[in-house]
């Protein structure tokens, strides 16, 4: 019996491999491979019908770039075994409904496309496909459903028409006739087959739980004039451009291994008919710049582009350089979130090519106003390059004229070092502290030195005297400690860990935590990465709170940095940590609840049951509490950020208007995009709070410019 099962598993694995790999490199033609495979499958249908149909169903969804290969295979099978064809069609319809119910819209769309192509193989009746399309269009006509739902159903039909349109339209041009003649010989084999009617299908109704695909922007980088020679690039709005883009972008979604993906892209079957290097680059950038999130993991794009350059060193680096040049020229008009992805990709890419670039051609940017888009872009790129390299290297690599744009050397700016004048208060304390740190003094000894600084006292309501936040104390201690730990992140982290209790004590209010953050920025003002990682550490070790960091970012002290990239790296880092905590707690809570209900359903009886039940009861309660606390903390953070934005931007607008100047300054344009970015990058979280936001922040009193940003965000789901 065991032998039989393992034989069966082996055959099933072999079938899967045969089916999934058909159409890959082979010495014989695809047609003969498919006929051969259909013969093999026909023989196995009697014993393995369900498995075979299941594999075909998976291929239809997971290997969409081979859609025509599998529809042809199904066509061949259908001529040999009519009931198998019928079962497969039923299976696909059922699968499509399930996907729709589970908000997997894209997968359901792939099935529509597969069914559409099945009319070409005489598996599905033309008229029943029309009925299916009709039901989709009916669904898009329903009243009281969001636009995004209607969009989906219309798009699903439209994007299937390239497969079924010719057959559906009766006007076949002479070109099409020629093409059909060639295919006819092969297809004539299928033409006598009996066809199936699609089972009746009604899309599942709209409910509040439905989450539809977010509206997408069609991304076009190149046009025909950008391409010097070879086959012409199809126009931006042509079906050909759409189809090639569609195939290439699906390869990006399916092949997550960078080497496989690069090989599939350059091996694209129709490559000789298109300037495919250009189309590959366009598709990779389209995925990277997709909003709100990149279509793939962000780092995947950099990695894939490196692989593509390695695979086709004679072509791809040039096309990529041309694309980069075009993006740079348009950087002024680029969405800020996309620009940041561009900066991260470009600096990462450069670090793999010794930072070599035709820098001289960009020298014009050094003559522009420093707040212009191009110099800002270059400066941010160099900030990132510095982190992946070192200062001297950049100075040596870049033309001299770039000097003003190269970040300063990332060394600490220590306040307590002026040996000459001794004018700095608390300088002796700092020296004593450093000696004590070096002598590995205890926490008490260090605190004793620190207490030589008199602190401002304040009386609270009860008349008791308590120590107020003491900026000088915080400054001397934190600067001296971090100055001594400057050698590396590890040194800094271990210094922070060693004095964790003292840091907690010094930063016992939000006000004192903000002092601490100021001190850190002053010390490391030329080392943005250091500021980012220290703050990350301080949040994780609960020395500073998330609201303290946010309020520090919006404070007067940080006004000079407000539009710089690293500030937003910190802010989005704070939100990401918060979001992850909420997600983690939610998952734990669901797991525990799930386990509990399993136990209740299970056969556990008597005492054992009672004990485990009460244990999980309190566990659930505790988790529920932490989850709700984290959730309200998260909501609070978003409210603080949005409120601070509204105050800041409204003040700016009002003050410009009173002076009679335009409020649309470079600062404003960057800052309002930062507001927009909060919605873009955290759309899933913020969309939960729209009710509160409309009541508290984005009401009819709010400035129109800010309201617009909010309404654009809402329309993503409307």
């Amino acid at each position, binding site marked *: 019996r065991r032998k039989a099962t393992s034989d069966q598993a082996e055959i099933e694995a072999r079938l899967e491999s045969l089916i999934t790999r058909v159409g890959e490199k082979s010495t014989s033609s695809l047609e003969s491979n498919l006929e051969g495979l259909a013969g093999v499958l026909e023989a196995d249908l009697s014993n393995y019908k369900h498995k075979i149909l299941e594999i075909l169903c998976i291929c239809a969804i997971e290997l969409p770039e081979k859609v025509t290969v599998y529809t042809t295979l199904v066509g061949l099978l259908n001529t040999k075994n009519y009931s198998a064809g019928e079962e497969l069609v039923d299976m696909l319809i059922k699968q499509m409904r399930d996907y729709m119910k589970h908000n997997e819209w894209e997968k359901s769309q792939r099935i529509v496309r597969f069914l559409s192509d099945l009319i070409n193989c005489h598996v599905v009746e033309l008229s029943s496909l029309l009925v299916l399309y009709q039901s989709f269009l009916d669904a898009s006509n329903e009243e009281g459903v969001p636009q995004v739902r209607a969009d989906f159903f219309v798009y699903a039909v439209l994007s299937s028409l390239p497969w079924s349109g010719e057959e559906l339209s009766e006007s076949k041009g002479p070109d099409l006739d020629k093409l059909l003649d060639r295919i006819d010989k092969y297809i004539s084999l299928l033409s006598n087959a009996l066809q199936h009617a699609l089972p009746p299908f009604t899309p599942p109704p709209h409910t509040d739980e439905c989450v539809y695909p977010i509206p997408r922007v069609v991304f076009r980088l190149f046009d025909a004039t950008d391409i010097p020679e070879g086959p012409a690039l199809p126009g931006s709005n042509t079906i050909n451009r759409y189809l090639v883009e569609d195939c290439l972008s699906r390869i990006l979604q399916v092949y997550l291994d960078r080497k496989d993906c690069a090989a599939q892209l350059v091996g694209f079957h129709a490559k000789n008919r298109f300037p495919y290097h250009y189309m590959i680059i366009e598709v990779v950038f389209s995925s990277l710049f997709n909003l709100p999130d990149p279509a793939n993991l962000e780092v995947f794009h950099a990695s894939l582009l490196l692989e593509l350059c390695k695979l086709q060193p004679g072509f791809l680096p040039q096309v990529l350089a041309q694309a980069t040049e075009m993006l740079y020229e348009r950087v002024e008009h680029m969405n800020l979130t996309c620009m940041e992805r561009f900066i991260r990709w470009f600096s990462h890419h450069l670090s793999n090519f*010794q930072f070599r670039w035709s820098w001289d051609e960009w020298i014009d940017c050094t003559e522009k106003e420093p707040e212009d888009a191009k110099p800002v872009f270059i400066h941010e790129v160099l900030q990132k390059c510095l982190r992946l390299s070192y200062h001297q290297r950049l100075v040596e690599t870049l033309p001299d004229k770039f000097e003003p744009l190269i970040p300063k050397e990332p060394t600490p700016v220590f306040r307590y070092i002026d040996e000459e004048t001794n004018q700095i208060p608390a300088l002796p304390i700092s020296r004593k502290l450093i000696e004590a740190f070096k002598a590995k003094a205890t926490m008490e000894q260090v605190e004793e030195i620190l207490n030589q600084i008199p602190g401002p006292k304040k009386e609270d309501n009860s008349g008791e005297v308590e120590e107020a936040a003491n900026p000088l104390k915080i400054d001397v201690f934190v600067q001296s400690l971090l100055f001594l730990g400057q050698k590396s992140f*590890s040194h800094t982290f271990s210094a922070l860990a060693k004095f964790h209790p003292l840091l907690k004590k010094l930063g016992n209010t939000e006000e004192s935590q903000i002092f601490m953050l100021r001190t850190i920025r002053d010390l490391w003002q030329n080392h943005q990465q250091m500021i980012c990682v220290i703050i990350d550490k301080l949040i994780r070790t609960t020395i500073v709170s998330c609201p303290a960091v946010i309020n520090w970012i919006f404070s007067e002290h940080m006004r000079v940095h407000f539009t710089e990239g690293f500030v937003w790296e910190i802010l989005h880092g704070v939100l990401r940590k918060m979001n992850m905590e909420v997600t983690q707690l939610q998952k734990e809570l669901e797991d525990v609840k799930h386990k509990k209900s399993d136990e209740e359903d299970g056969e556990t009886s008597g005492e054992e049951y009672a004990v485990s039940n009460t244990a999980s009861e309190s566990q659930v309660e505790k988790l529920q509490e932490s989850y709700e606390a984290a959730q309200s903390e998260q909501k609070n953070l978003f409210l603080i950020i949005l409120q601070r934005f509204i105050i800041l931007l409204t003040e700016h607008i009002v003050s410009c208007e009173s002076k009679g100047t335009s409020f649309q300054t470079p600062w404003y344009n960057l800052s309002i995009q930062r507001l927009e970015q909060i919605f873009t990058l955290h759309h899933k979280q913020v969309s939960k709070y729209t009710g509160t936001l409309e009541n508290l922040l984005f009401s009819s009193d709010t400035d129109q410019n800010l309201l617009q940003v909010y309404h654009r965000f809402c329309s993503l789901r409307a």
Partner: protein
Amino acid sequence: NMTEQEKRLRLSSTLYIGNLSFFTTEEQIHELFSKCGDIKRIIMGLDKVKKTPCGFCFLEFYRREDAKHALMYISGTRLDDRIIRGDWDAGFVEGRQYGRG
């Protein structure tokens, strides 16, 4: 014990990164790999005698998924002009940072 070791490897979020330049700093490694996710800690491999970096490090992520992406998308690319290589590690134990230099 082989199975114990295998088990730890399967659950690990730690990578061994090799072929680093002796001059590559923790900061550079942090910047490159944090493209895949938040990093918990980096332990630089040190020369047993001189206590200077000697071309490898241990890199621990908070999440295993992120370490997997680091292997897929960073390992085999360049840092400081050298092609660096990553592999799963069963987890850092004190003493393992000292290499032969």
